[in-house]
Structure formats: structure tokens, C-alpha cells
């Protein structure tokens, strides 16, 4: 897990809830899957921007996963404006999965 952020403290706080957001098909949470790339906190305007990816651009659950991520972040930061953006550059790959995630997948 290697999430770029400008606030480790807030990022860790957000992760507590994000560990409960699963990819429904795989059954593994998005943090251990390595789907989260960046998280930026604008403390002046109370804005939170999360940049994440999906295992594939054609993931049929993509909409549900991003909705879920946004809801989880809104729950952690109720007074903040939350934006979740998707990127496929770089494309997600096996090396992004955490050791716990690899154990879960039998690798």
C-alpha cells in the first residue's frame, strides 16, 4: 500500500473506514487491493480529493465501488467536500496488492 498524500494523519483516519469497502467480486477491500493511489486534503476549503483505480477499466462493479468509496470518505469527514476521481494510469497490477491481500488471494 503506497498512497500519496499531503496528510498521513488524515489519510490513516480515512483508511479505517475504507478497509470496509470491498470489491464485491473479489471480496477483498480496496485498500489491500491497492486501488487507492492518492488522497489530498485541502484544509482551507475543507475539500478532500481521492484518486483511485479499478482492477480493470471494464469492471462491472466500478460504479458501485466508487460510490461506496465516496460514501465512506464522507462518513469519515462529514463536513468536507469529497471528490473521488478514477485513473487508469498507471494501470492496476499485482504488485499493488498488500501482503495481506496476497494471502487472501492465495498468493
Amino acid at each position: 500500500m503506497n498512497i500519496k498524500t499531503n496528510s498521513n494523519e488524515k489519510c490513516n483516519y480515512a483508511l479505517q473506514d475504507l478497509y470496509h469497502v470491498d470489491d464485491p467480486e473479489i471480496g477483498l477491500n480496496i485498500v489491500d487491493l491497492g486501488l487507492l493511489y492518492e488522497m489530498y486534503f485541502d484544509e482551507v476549503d475543507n475539500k478532500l480529493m481521492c484518486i483511485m483505480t479499478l482492477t480493470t477499466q471494464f469492471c462491472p462493479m466500478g460504479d458501485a465501488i466508487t460510490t461506496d468509496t465516496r460514501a465512506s470518505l464522507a462518513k469519515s469527514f462529514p463536513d468536507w467536500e469529497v471528490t473521488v476521481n478514477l485513473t487508469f494510469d498507471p494501470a492496476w497490477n499485482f504488485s499493488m496488492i498488500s501482503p495481506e491481500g496476497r494471502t487472501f488471494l492465495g498468493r
Partner: protein
Amino acid sequence: MMSPLIGGLQKTTNYKVVLPFYIYASLGFLLGTILLLCHTEVVGVHYFNPQTLAITHTMALAWGTMIIFGASHQLLPVLVEGKLDSDRLAYLTFWLTAIGIPLLIYGFYVFDMGLLMQIGAILINLGVICYLANVLGSSFKSNRRNVHAWYVITAALWLFATTFFGLLLVLNFRTPIFVGNSVDYLAIHAHLGIVGWFVLMVVGVGSRLIPMFLISKYTNERLLWLVFVLLNMALIGFSIAYLANFPAISFYIPIILGLLAVVLFCKYCYNAYKVRIRRSIDQQVKTSLISIVQMFLPFVALIIALTFLPQGLFPRMAIIYGFCIFFGWITAIILGMTFKTMPFIIWNKVYHNKAHKGKTPAPKEIFNDNIYKIMLYSYLGGFILFIFGIVLLHQIVLKIGALLLLITAVLYVYNVMITAGHKSRQL
């Protein structure tokens, strides 16, 4: 900071468009197995008889085509990297074909090629035109078309060629259109559908879905293009050889081309399997992978028929060939892929905006897994026994095989209905 690619996410098709196809197809499968059980005596006679034609068209249209229509409307956004062009055209496709198919099947069953059957064939053609328009509209809206999109476009075109040719054959029974008898052209009509529609579609869709479900990063566009060219060459080569009355030996060329295409597709799936990220594979993906191996059985039947059999035994081998296709790999891949794609559709319908409220069931928990496993055993037993029944021409073995296939269909329908009727659990 990386620049996010907003809008890269595929928009899913409305479940209301897709579900009717799945439900209709499940009932089509049930009807196909009932007809098979009631008419096992047709195994010993020539395939051009009312019941065999009714069973074949039930399996090809009411079962195979309707479920592919449903799945492809759902998967078109994934395959063409865009959005389904028109929900209205999809509804039209459903209603036109849903009304036309029973009329056609009834016409075959009572062997009356009159007005009712002709109306059925026309309605099916109109439905296929709507489908083709939707595929073309969806594909050509985006500037970029990948190999999967070309498979779907070509398969839809071949489907139209099949149904239009079929309509002409129906009309030819009453008003002469062709030089010969309609029966003389059946082999071309059948192979346009089998290779042009079913095989191209299964390879095009499977080559995207199988790596996705295995969570495998494998892709090989060049290999898929090669398979695409081989399959189309095989189909065109066969049609020319048949129409031009080439000697029997010339039919080996399209057979070898087709066989090579299937071998390469197997290699593609194996490569995807080898580099998969998730080690364990669920039963549905296993079934789909087994069905790919089943694609070889019709080739075996065909080569045996051409090489070793005297003309007298050819009709029975033709029955094995058709059975291995419609009750073999087409049915097996549908049995696997239905419970891989349909639970996603239902999950997105029921839990799309509820996931963050609590632990949702996984898509695979939406249907009954135990019933699914029993269905698979019943299917494999029925399929193998029926093949033995054809070889031995033994009515009891045929009846037991057909009964097991009917049980398969009942369990399949039950699971489809459970999935379709799934309600949100308390989160």
C-alpha cells in the same frame, strides 16, 4: 499529481433491458429439454424432420441466441468501451424475437411452413435488425474499436445473414426462390449460425470476460485477430465449397482452419489462466473453461463422419455433431456464464446505492450454490449418457440422458428465478 481520467468508467446497461432475455432463455432451455425427452426417437432418423428442426431452433434461438442477446446488451459497454446505444432498440429486439421464435418453432413442430411460420421468421429478422442496429450504433459512437468490438459486430452481421437466409428458406418451401430444395441449403444456414454467430460471439466475449473473471492481466490482440481471421475464412471457405459442390476432401480445409482457431483460443484462455491473480477459481468459471474444451467434440464428430463413415451412418453422426454444439459447448458456457453475469446485474440493481450502509452479500451469494452444483452433475451425466444413447441407438439410455438434461433445465430455471427475484437483505 497524476491526471485523473474521469469518465473512463463503463456505464452499465439498465437491468430492465437485460433480465427479460435471461428469463425467456431459461424457459427456452426448459422447452428444448422437454422436446428432447418427448422425441428421443428422432435420433435414428435423418435430421430433416419436424421434431429435430423444432428442438434445434428452440436451442439455437430461444436458448442460445436469447441469452447471448441478454448478455451482450449488458456487456456491450465493456466490449465496445462505450455505452449501449439505445434501450428502446433492445426492448424491440426482445419483443420481436420473443413473439417470432415460438411461431417459428411451432411451424417446424407441426411441419406447416405457412403464414404463421413466415410471420415468425419475419419477426425474428426484424428483431435481429434492431439488435444489429444497436450493436453498430454502440460500436461506431466511439472513435476506437478494439478486437472484441469487431468480433461482436461481425457476429451480429453473420446472425443477420443466418436469419435472413433462414427466412428465404422458409419462403422457398412455398414459393421457389432457390434453384434447389430448402433442405439442400440447411448446412450453410446452420454453419452461418454456429460459426458466424455463436463461435465468433463466444470467442469475442469470452476473450474479454475470462481474463476479467480470473483477475488476469493477460491479453493478446494479435492472437485474437488471428483467431478472428481463421474463423471467418473457415466459414467462407465452407460456404464456397458447399455451394460449388467441391469434392468431400476440400471440406477438410475449413475444418482445419476452424480447429486451429479453437486451439488458439484455448491457448489464449490457458495463458490467461496461468497468470491469474486469484488462485482459487469458482465453479462458474470452471464450467466456462470446460465448455471451451467441449468445442473440440463437434470437430471429432465431423472428422469421423467425413473420414470413416459410410453414407448410411452419416445422419446419426450429424445428430451427434448438432447435439455436441447445442447441448454441449453452447449450453455449458451458458450454464457457467449465466451465474457469473446475472448476479452482477442483480447486485448492481439491488445494492448499487446501499453498499456503504453495511456488509452486502457477494454476487455469488445471490443464487443457490448447492442447486448450481447439482445442476452441473445432472448436466454432465445427461450429456454423456445422451451421446452414448446416440452411438448405441438405445432408447432407454437416450430417455435417461434426456431426463437428466430436463432436470438440469428445471434447476437452472429455479436458480435464474431466485436470482431475478432477489430482494435487498437488511444491512
